[in-house]
């Protein structure tokens, strides 16, 4: 019996159901966070087996320990115990897809070289059954000489069997190099270990075989993470080692892989049998339709339409309720506490800020629910397959489509959805151009300006100039996004380009527990991590708009009761001063100080622009009648020139500014969370605002000629 508390690591290929097993083991006792300094998520939990608490780490999915991507490297580093942020695992559960044994066992043979106790978990045995594959668990255990547990999605007993296997005496570490490297490879490997790894590096001993093989295969020190003394000696040793293999007619890059696959072939020949032959599986039949050249894109468009219907319409009632709760709650609080600064801070700063965070939840929950269902079924990979050809033409990836389209509802869930793009570079470019998609928060601003300044002249009988302007703004955003993506593809160093090989997993019913748990996690991550930043910025913005406090006697003296107190306060606040301060800068865009205030306050959310203008223009008419904001904008006259403040050129310039500028603190906060650095949100803010300034400048100057 094992009574020690262990650190257990789960490792496996992507799409092997690793997370399902992690969830089954840990239940709700799990934590999810980013690894320090990078975008990869770390999942850790605990499980109680026979009264002993064990720590469980779900390592990023990987096809090989010869890492090509940062998340694969973390899996490798954690396993060999050289990753500083993670404990050395005492036991590794190698999760494999039973319907795809060959490729999955490749990683397993690598992990077995690390001299750590392992248990092989044959997952998805039901899928293997469906494909007519019979697996002899005992034969695998005997060939590999490691404990093997079979699990299927259909019965829960597998997890109990796994638990009892963990509970048994700790299995001893498997014998490394079970796969029997050929003589030349063995000689080359020993050479690298004895003449380089042992004397010159501090890499842990358990990793020496894998590291030697990696160096021989790569032929250079790509992305080495450990300390070494004399790179020149290392390079000479590696060249010599590769020479040994080449002299024997081998290929240093391929020999290890071929030897491993030979061994795997022998192993599966003994243990796995294709008992029935299916001409066409359900997956084949579905794929014939959904990846069809013509039907495929149409089906994908329908799926997208359905998703957006959900984020746009179905989420709205929930957002209204949240809005109402926070407004009513704020009103109640403001009455319940004595008036004063603390009251204002609580209601207008904190409560409004919290409301601004929670309001995003319905859209995030809806979008991720659909994404996780589609991922769970295996359809997302097909959608990427169908769209990849189109998207690579504009410098993006097939998986960029869903995040970008979600951006039309709101950039926040869209940027979170970009995590489905595995390739880091494609993911960061998608995130960086995503805010150009015309999100729904821009709608009120567009609607106000178009209604006020664009004539409703009919065009071609069916359309109006107003409608065309609306449409034009959407297309403009898309075109700028495509342009920006193409430029970024040129700018960002490709570095060691990760190969882009995408697996198309077989269709299955989504695991509902996984769908719900993951969706809830995304909501939680947003609230706790991005939420902090959003509330903090809200409070700062509240402070700018409310201080310094006006003197009530100044107000009565200056305003002649023609201006509301709110408007007077805002004009004289830091925000008002800011508006006047930046007026010379934004004047070439056709903006005055009032718009300047709006540019600052709308950082809380773009639609706040409308509210701010409302407050500033809430000057009562002399005849006591209130005209609409639209009419006030049209009638506003510059006191110096006597000309209207807003021309069509100003309106168009302002709409272009809103289409392009990074006017959204929540986007900044979520980009910080998702990229795990302030570098990207800062770069995003600067380049988008600069581009907005440039385009608005050109538009206004051309329009005023």
């Amino acid at each position, binding site marked *: 019996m094992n009574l020690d508390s262990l650190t257990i690591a789960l490792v496996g290929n992507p799409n092997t159901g690793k997370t399902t097993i992690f969830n089954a083991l840990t239940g709700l006792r799990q934590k999810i966070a980013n690894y320090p300094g990078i975008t990869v998520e770390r999942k850790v939990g605990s499980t109680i087996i026979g009264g002993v608490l064990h720590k469980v780490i779900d390592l990023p999915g990987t096809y090989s320990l010869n890492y090509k991507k940062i998340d694969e490297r973390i899996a490798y580093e954690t396993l060999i115990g050289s990753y500083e942020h993670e404990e050395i695992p005492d036991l590794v559960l190698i999760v494999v897809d039973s*319907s795809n044994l060959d490729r999955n066992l490749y990683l397993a043979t690598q992990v077995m070289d690390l001299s750590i106790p392992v248990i092989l978990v044959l997952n998805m045995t039901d899928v293997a059954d469906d494909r007519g*594959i019979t697996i002899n668990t005992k034969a695998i255990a005997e060939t590999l000489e490691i404990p093997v547990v079979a699990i299927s999605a259909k019965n829960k007993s597998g997890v109990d069997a796994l638990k009892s296997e963990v509970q048994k005496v700790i299995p001893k570490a498997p014998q490394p190099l079970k796969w029997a490297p050929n003589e030349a490879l063995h000689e080359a490997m020993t050479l690298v270990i004895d003449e380089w790894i042992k004397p010159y590096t501090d890499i842990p001993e358990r990793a020496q075989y894998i590291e030697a093989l990696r160096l021989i*295969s790569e032929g250079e020190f790509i992305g080495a993470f450990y300390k070494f003394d004399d790179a020149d000696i290392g390079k000479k040793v590696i060249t010599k080692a590769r020479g040994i293999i080449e002299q024997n007619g081998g290929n240093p890059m391929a020999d290890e*892989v071929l030897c491993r696959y030979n061994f795997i072939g022998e192993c599966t020949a003994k243990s796995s049998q294709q008992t029935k032959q299916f001409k066409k599986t359900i997956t084949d039949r579905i794929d014939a339709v959904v990846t069809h*050249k013509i039907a495929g894109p149409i089906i994908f468009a329908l799926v997208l339409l359905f998703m957006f219907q959900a984020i746009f319409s179905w989420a709205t009632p929930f957002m209204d309720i949240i809005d109402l709760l926070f407004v009513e709650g704020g009103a109640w609080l403001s009455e319940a506490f004595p008036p004063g600064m603390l009251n204002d801070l609580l209601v207008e700063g904190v409560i409004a800020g919290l409301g601004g965070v929670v309001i995003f939840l319905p859209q995030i929950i809806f979008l991720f629910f659909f994404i996780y269902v589609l991922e769970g079924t295996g359809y997302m990979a097909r959608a990427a397959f169908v769209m990849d*050809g189109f998207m690579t033409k504009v410098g993006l990836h097939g998986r960029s489509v869903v995040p970008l389209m979600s951006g039309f509802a709101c950039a926040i869930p869209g940027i979170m959805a970009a995590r489905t793009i595995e390739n880091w570079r494609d993911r960061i470019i998608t995130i960086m151009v995503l805010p150009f998609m015309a999100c729904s928060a821009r709608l009120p601003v567009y609607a106000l300006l178009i209604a006020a300044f664009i004539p409703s002249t009919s065009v071609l009988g069916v359309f109006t100039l107003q409608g065309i302007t609306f449409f034009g703004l959407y297309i403009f955003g898309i075109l700028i996004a495509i342009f920006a993506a193409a430029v970024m593809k040129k700018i960002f160093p490709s570095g060691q380009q990760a*190969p882009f090989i995408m697996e198309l997993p077989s269709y299955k019913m989504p695991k509902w527990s996984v769908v719900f748990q993951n969706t809830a996690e995304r909501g939680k991550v947003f609230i706790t991590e991005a939420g902090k930043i959003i509330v903090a910025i809200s409070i700062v913005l509240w402070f700018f708009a409310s201080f310094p406090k006006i003197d009530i006697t100044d107000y009565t003296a200056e305003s002649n009761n023609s201006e509301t107190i709110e408007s007077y306060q805002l004009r004289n606040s830091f925000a008002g001063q800011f508006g006047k301060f930046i007026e010379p800068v934004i004047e070439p865009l056709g903006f005055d100080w009032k718009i300047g205030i709006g540019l600052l306050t709308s950082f809380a959310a773009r639609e706040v622009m409308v509210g701010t203008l409302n407050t500033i223009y809430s000057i009562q008419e002399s005849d006591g009648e209130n005209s609409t904001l639209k009419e006030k904008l049209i009638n506003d006259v510059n006191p110096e020139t006597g000309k209207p403040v807003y021309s069509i050129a100003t309106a168009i310039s302002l709409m272009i500014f809103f289409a392009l500028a990074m006017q959204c603190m929540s986007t900044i906060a979520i980009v910080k969370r998702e990229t795990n650095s302030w570098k990207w949100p800062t770069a995003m803010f600067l380049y988008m605002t600069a581009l907005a300034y440039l385009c608005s400048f050109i538009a206004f100057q051309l329009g005023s000629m």
Partner: protein
Amino acid sequence: MDKLLSEISLPKIVTIRNVTGIDATRLLEMGITPGTEIEIIRRAPLGFPLEIKVRGYFLSLRKSEADCIEVRLDE
């Protein structure tokens, strides 16, 4: 006759002859090893990526990756 995988019209079953180029290591590790059979299933709307079946599972390959794989047509 040896050809690049990217040049094969479908549907076809071919045998891998050689894997070269920048992505070769990962392709080999994914089980695309010389001597293994590949079934070319379909092409995406603009011709690429390519869907193949190898060792019982399905992979999507872009043109640059399919260019790394030399194959022989099975007659």
